[in-house]
C-alpha cells in the first residue's frame, strides 16, 4: 500500500471537508464504543484480565528470541515451512516465490493488516496473480481500489449506496436489491466458487503459539477457514510480536481482543492451524508456510517502543480517539490509523516522513485507558516528538519558538515581565471582554474568540496587594 503520512495536513483538510465521512466514521465508532462498554459491564473482572494480558505480552517481549525459536522448532516438527523476513520487501519476495513455485494463479486472502503493511496486495497484483479478498470489507475495498480506513472495519468509510454500485459493477450475478442482507448474499455467491477453486490461500495470524507451532486466526465470517482449507498451499504472514507461549496464554488475550474490538465475547470462528494436511486428514492444504516478519519490530525494541509490541490490533484506541473520530483513517496516510497508527507509522515509514502524526494528538490519554494491554500511547507519541526534536526534524520556526519560550520560562522575572507586556498587548485587541482577532493568533481566532485578560497579571496584582498591605482578596 502506498503510504503518504507526510501529506497529513492536506489529508486532514480533505477529511474535515467531507460531511459524509463523519457520518460513516461515527456509525462505526459510536457502535464500537457502546458495545465495548456493554461487554465490560458484563465482565466485572475486566481490569484483572487487562493486567494479566499486559503481563503475558511483556513476558513474551522479554523472551522474544526464546519463543520465536520454540515456535519455529514446533512448527517445523508439525510439517510447516518457516521463513524469516527482515523487512517488507523480503516478506513479499518469499510469498511470491512460493506462489510462483506452485504455479498458482488464483490466490484467496483473509484479512491481514500485516499483509497490508508489507504491501502484499499490490505485489500479487503486479506479479499477475488473481487476488481474491474474501473478508467482506476487504472485498469491498478491493473493488473500490481503496486502502483500509480502520483495522477492524476497513471499509467503514463506504456507504451502502457505494456497495450497491460496486457489486452491480463487479459481481457476476449481482442483486437488484439495496437491502444489506441481499448485498451480503451477493458477495457470498460471488466468492463461494472462488474459495473452492483457489490455488493458494494467504492469511495473517492473530496469535502464534510457541508450544505447538500453531497459528490462530479469528473471524466472524468463516472466510479464513474457507481460504485455508480448500487450497493446496496455505501461507501465513505474521509479525514476530504475535507470539504467545501456549493456547492457555492466547485465551486471556482473545477475551480482551474481541470485547475491545467489537464488544463480542469471542469471534464466531477461532481456529488454530498446525502444519499441513496429515496422512489420514479428510481435507487441508498440502503445504503450510509461515512467514515471520520483523519489518521494524526489533528496532522498536531498541528504541524505547517495546510496549507498542503488546498491541493485539483491536482498534479500541481509534474508536475512542477524538482526533480519529473527526478525520477518519485515510487521513493518517499509513497502513495503521488512529493512536496505534500514529506510533507505528513513524516506526515503519520513518520518523522524518511521519512526524506530524505524533503531533496530531491532544495527549488526552483516553486511548491508553481503553487499550486492553495498557499501552502508554501518549507516552510513546511524546517520545516520538522528543526523538524528532533531537534529530532536528522539527521545522526551524517551531524550534525557535520553543527555544525562545524556554529561555523566557527559565527566567521567571523576565517571563513575568513579558507576561505583563502580553496582557497590555492583548487588551488592545479586546472588544467587550473578548478578542476575535489578533496578530499571530489566527489559528485560534479563525474559529473561536479568546477571553481577554484583565488589567494585569496575577503576580503583579498579588505583589501590589502585598506591598500595600491589603488582605488577600479580590482587587
Amino acid at each position: 500500500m502506498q503510504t503518504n503520512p507526510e501529506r497529513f495536513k492536506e489529508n486532514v483538510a480533505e477529511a474535515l471537508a467531507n460531511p459524509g465521512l463523519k457520518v460513516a466514521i461515527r456509525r462505526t465508532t459510536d457502535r464500537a464504543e457502546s458495545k465495548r462498554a456493554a461487554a465490560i459491564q458484563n465482565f466485572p473482572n475486566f481490569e484483572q484480565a487487562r493486567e494479566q494480558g499486559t503481563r503475558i505480552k511483556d513476558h513474551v517481549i522479554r523472551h522474544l528470541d526464546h519463543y520465536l525459536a520454540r515456535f519455529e522448532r514446533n512448527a517445523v516438527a508439525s510439517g510447516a515451512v518457516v521463513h524469516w523476513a527482515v523487512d517488507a520487501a523480503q516478506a513479499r519476495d518469499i510469498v511470491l516465490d512460493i506462489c510462483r513455485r506452485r504455479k498458482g494463479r488464483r490466490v484467496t486472502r483473509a484479512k491481514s493488516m500485516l499483509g497490508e503493511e508489507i504491501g502484499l496486495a499490490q505485489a500479487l497484483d503486479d506479479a499477475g496473480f488473481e487476488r481474491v479478498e474474501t473478508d467482506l470489507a476487504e472485498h469491498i475495498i478491493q473493488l473500490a481500489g481503496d486502502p483500509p480506513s480502520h483495522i477492524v472495519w476497513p471499509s467503514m468509510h463506504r456507504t451502502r449506496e457505494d456497495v450497491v454500485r460496486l457489486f452491480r459493477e463487479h459481481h457476476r450475478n449481482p442483486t437488484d436489491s439495496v437491502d444489506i442482507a441481499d448485498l451480503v448474499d451477493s458477495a457470498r455467491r460471488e466468492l463461494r466458487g472462488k474459495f473452492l477453486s483457489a490455488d493458494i490461500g494467504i492469511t495473517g495470524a492473530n496469535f502464534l503459539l510457541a508450544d505447538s507451532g500453531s497459528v490462530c486466526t479469528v473471524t466472524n465470517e468463516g472466510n479464513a477457514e474457507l481460504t485455508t482449507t480448500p487450497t493446496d498451499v496455505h501461507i501465513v504472514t505474521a509479525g514476530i510480536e504475535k507470539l504467545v507461549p501456549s493456547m492457555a496464554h492466547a485465551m486471556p488475550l482473545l477475551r480482551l481482543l474481541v470485547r475491545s474490538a467489537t464488544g463480542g465475547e469471542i469471534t464466531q470462528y477461532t481456529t488454530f492451524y498446525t502444519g499441513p494436511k496429515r496422512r489420514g486428514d479428510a481435507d487441508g492444504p498440502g503445504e503450510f508456510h509461515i512467514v515471520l516478519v520483523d519489518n521494524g519490530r526489533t528496532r522498536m525494541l531498541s528504541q524505547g517502543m517495546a510496549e507498542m509490541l503488546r498491541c493485539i490490533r483491536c482498534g479500541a484506541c481509534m474508536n475512542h480517539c477524538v482526533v480519529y473520530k473527526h478525520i477518519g483513517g485515510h487521513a493518517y496516510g499509513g497502513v495503521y490509523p488512529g493512536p496505534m497508527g500514529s506510533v507505528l507509522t513513524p516506526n515503519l515509514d520513518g520518523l522524518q516522513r511521519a512526524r506530524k502524526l505524533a503531533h496530531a494528538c491532544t495527549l488526552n490519554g483516553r486511548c491508553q485507558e481503553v487499550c486492553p494491554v495498557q499501552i502508554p500511547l501518549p507516552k510513546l507519541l511524546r517520545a516520538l516528538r522528543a526523538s524528532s526534536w533531537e534529530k532536528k526534524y522539527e521545522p526551524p520556526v517551531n524550534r525557535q519558538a520553543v527555544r525562545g519560550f524556554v529561555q523566557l520560562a527559565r527566567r521567571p522575572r523576565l517571563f513575568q515581565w513579558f507576561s505583563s507586556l502580553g496582557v497590555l498587548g492583548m487588551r488592545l485587541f479586546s472588544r467587550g471582554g473578548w478578542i476575535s482577532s489578533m496578530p499571530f493568533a489566527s489559528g485560534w481566532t479563525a474559529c473561536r474568540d479568546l477571553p481577554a485578560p484583565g488589567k494585569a497579571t496575577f503576580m503583579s496584582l498579588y505583589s501590589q496587594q502585598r506591598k500595600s498591605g491589603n488582605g488577600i482578596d479580590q482587587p
Partner: protein
Amino acid sequence: MTTESNSKQRTAIFDAIRSSGLTVECDEEDIRREAAELVTGVADARPPLLADDIVEAFRMRFDNGLVVGTTCVEITEFRDLPGAVSQYLERHGLPALVKIQPLDNLTGLDWAGFSTDADVELDDSVAVLMAEFGIAETGSVVVCSSASMPVLLNFLPLHAIVVVERSRILPFLDDYAAIAGEMAGDSTTPRNVSLITGASGTTDIEGVLVKGAHGPKFLHVVVVGR
C-alpha cells in the same frame, strides 16, 4: 527447513532482538515457570458463567440470544438425533436431505427417510457433525480435523447441526486450552481446531449484522446425554 538466504535473515532478526537490551538471558526452565505462573490462579480474571451448572450455563448462551444465529436442543440418547434433525428441518421448511459427517457414531444411526449424501458444494445443504467439546463460557463447540472430519463440512453448508456430548462440555476457554496444551506436549495437536461460536456473520456494511458471510447461516447445537 530454512534456506541459506533465510538463515541470514533469521540470524539478523535474532541478533537484533538480543542486542536490543530488552530481552533477558534466562534459563528455559525459569521461562516456563514464569509462563505457567501467568495463567495459574487467574480465576478472578475470567468472566462469569451464566449458571453454576455447566450444561445449563452452556444452554443459556443460546437461549439468551448471545450466540449469533444459533438454536439449541437437548436429547438424551444418540438414537434420538435423527428425530431432532427431522424437527429442525421441518421448522425450517427443508427437505429430508442432509450430509452426515463420516463418523460411525453418526452414520450408524437410523436415518430412514433421509437422503444422507447432500452435496455441500451447493449452497443450500444441511450438515450433521460431531463436536469434540463444548465450552460453557462462550457457547462454543470445538471441531477438530481428522480422517472423519473434513473441515469444510463445517463451513460450506447453509445449516450446520452440531452434536456435542453433555459430559464433554467444559466450563471455560482455559479448560480447552489445558487440553490443547497437553496435546502440544504429546505432539497430537490436530491440524485444524475450530472453536465455533454461532453462525457466520458480518457487520461490514453500515454496521448491520447479516448472517451467512461466508459460512453457515444457521447453527443448531444438539446436546446429547443424561
